């Protein structure tokens, strides 16, 4: 079989043929014939089948989630003009069936439910129903009283309310129905918090979506994360495909991205098995704990743990971010990727932008801009530094702290706080790195030479994030002191 390319006879060679296929694959969303086919009923069917098959084969999705994704995508394909309605319906089903972002919240509710005469599923369902009802009331109230201070600064109000509710729940006696019920509700709220925040901001800024549609975006069916990838309907609408040709291009991009996610997942799986399986190199967390327990691995093994943790983490975040963005694109919204070639970054702030785009956006939208627009207006450098501290330091910590508030259901006092020391330190160092990166006047230029432009800045970024990962922990297992000891021992100190 020959491929009609500009490379002529070279395509007969298997390697050249592979690269010709690769080029054709990567360019298919610009290929008129491919786009025309993708817009036909047969093309739509073929793309959806290929997409779902790739999701099923290459990614570790549950059968239930895959079935829900298939049904939602089918609905969006059949009724593209009503895709918001389909998304909202699927989102309501998703939040009802899987209301908690992390497994620890499910376990907390199951554990607390043993003390009350209700099964966990009933508690979860009641918590979801209560949350949706309150979210509806909040959205309607914001719409009706749009000129009030709370309606204009809804996220700040919601943050205050959230932590007041956590404090109130911590005072209730364990084993009571009120305690169990309120913590179940907080679990749903914490899991949906940032989606809800974007819904409130959307309404404030005039997005025309109906509130029943916004309720379906409290945890959209593509969301495995508490970070709203694709934000909400206001943001999505900027990327919506408006005609069959645009939709075909968007779906072809989705197919390319999900296949790339599958390939990266294969690489991740193989690399993790070779490093942590065959070569028996401990994970970074294991290496830290081994050293803390007096069983220090060799220097080479510890460095291998550190470096492999960095690269495997990049692969993992790329895989799930690509998969989620691909699903959003299949629906018909050509949103930007979550991870975009982070190793190309020449500065810490560029890496932060490329590594986890929608988390960075969350921090910028809800912490950076509000601080930047209000404080230190006469001192530009201090202004940027303070806003960055608010976002990457305070906002970052708050995001993770909020997700982990289930610990206060068991131990509602200050004894729980040391669990968060690592995350606090991590956020502070990250913010400091970003501040320095942003305030540094020097940007590498091509004329600086190959090493100074291509190599040195990238190695610096990698070194910073590699070492920072030692403190990237929310479990509280492995104290700050033990992590510092691990860092120093890497350099023989």
């Amino acid at each position, binding site marked *: 079989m020959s491929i009609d390319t500009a490379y002529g006879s070279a395509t007969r060679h298997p390697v050249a043929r592979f690269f010709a296929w690769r080029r054709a694959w990567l360019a298919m969303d610009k290929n008129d014939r491919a786009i025309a086919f993708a817009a036909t009923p047969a093309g739509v069917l073929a793309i959806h089948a290929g997409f779902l098959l790739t999701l099923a084969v290459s990614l570790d999705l549950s059968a239930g989630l895959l079935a829900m994704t298939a049904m939602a995508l089918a609905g969006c394909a059949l009724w593209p003009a009503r895709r918001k309605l389909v998304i909202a319906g699927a989102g309501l089903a998703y939040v009802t069936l899987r209301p908690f972002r992390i497994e620890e919240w499910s376990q907390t509710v199951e554990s607390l439910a043993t003390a009350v005469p209700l099964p966990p599923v009933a508690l979860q369902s009641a918590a979801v129903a209560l949350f949706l009802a309150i979210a509806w009331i909040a959205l309607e109230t914001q719409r009706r009283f749009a000129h009030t201070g709370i309606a*204009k600064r809804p996220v700040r109000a919601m943050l205050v309310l959230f932590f007041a509710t956590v404090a109130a729940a911590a005072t209730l006696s364990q084993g009571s129905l009120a305690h169990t019920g309120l913590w179940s509700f907080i679990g749903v709220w914490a899991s949906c918090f940032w989606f809800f925040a974007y819904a409130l901001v959307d309404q404030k800024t005039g997005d025309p979506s109906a509130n029943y549609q916004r309720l379906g975006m409290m945890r959209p069916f593509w969301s495995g994360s508490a970070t709203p990838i694709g934000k909400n309907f206001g943001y999505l609408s900027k990327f919506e495909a408006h005609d069959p040709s645009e939709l075909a291009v968007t779906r072809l991009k989705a197919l390319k991205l999900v296949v790339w996610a599958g390939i990266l997942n294969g690489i991740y799986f193989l690399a993790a098995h070779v490093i942590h399986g065959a070569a028996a190199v401990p994970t970074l967390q294991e290496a830290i704990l081994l050293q803390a327990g007096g069983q220090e691995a060799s220097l080479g093994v510890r460095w291998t743990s550190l470096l492999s943790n960095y690269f495997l983490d990049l692969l993992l975040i790329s895989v799930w971010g690509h998969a989620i963005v691909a699903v959003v694109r299949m629906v018909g919204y050509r949103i930007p990727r979550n991870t*975009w070639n982070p190793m190309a970054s020449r500065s810490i*702030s560029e890496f932060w932008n490329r590594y986890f785009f929608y988390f960075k956006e969350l921090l910028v939208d809800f912490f950076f801009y509000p601080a930047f*627009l209000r404080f230190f207006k006469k001192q530009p450098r201090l202004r*940027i530094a303070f806003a960055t501290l608010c976002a990457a330091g305070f906002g970052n910590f708050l995001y993770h702290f909020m997700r982990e508030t289930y610990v206060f259901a068991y131990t509602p006092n200050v004894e729980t706080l040391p669990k968060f020391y690592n995350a606090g330190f991590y956020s502070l160092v990250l913010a400091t790195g970003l501040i320095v990166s*942003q305030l540094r006047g020097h*940007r590498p230029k091509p004329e600086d030479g190959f090493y100074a432009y291509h190599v040195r800045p990238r190695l610096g970024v990698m070194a910073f994030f590699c070492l920072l990962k030692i403190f990237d922990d929310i479990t509280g297992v492995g104290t700050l002191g033990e992590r510092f000891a691990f860092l120093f021992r890497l350099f023989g100190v």
Partner: protein
Amino acid sequence: MDNSAHNTIRGAIEAILAARGIDGPVSDTDSLFISGRLDSLAATEVMMMLESDFNLDLADPDFDMSRLDTIADLTRLVTDMAA
């Protein structure tokens, strides 16, 4: 006012793009931030330019950041807020 504001804004945006090594023409309706062409740090430069050159107060809670996405958006924002 419109032309003068437009020229000032276009000049500032082109300077920000050039400082980041982003070449090529930019139209009035090209997305700058949502498309990822410019990052949030560049947005702060744009906001500081709006504050210093046009005396805008962007701290108003009604202010919508998505109104900063294109040169046309920025010109409209300056015109609207000056009116």
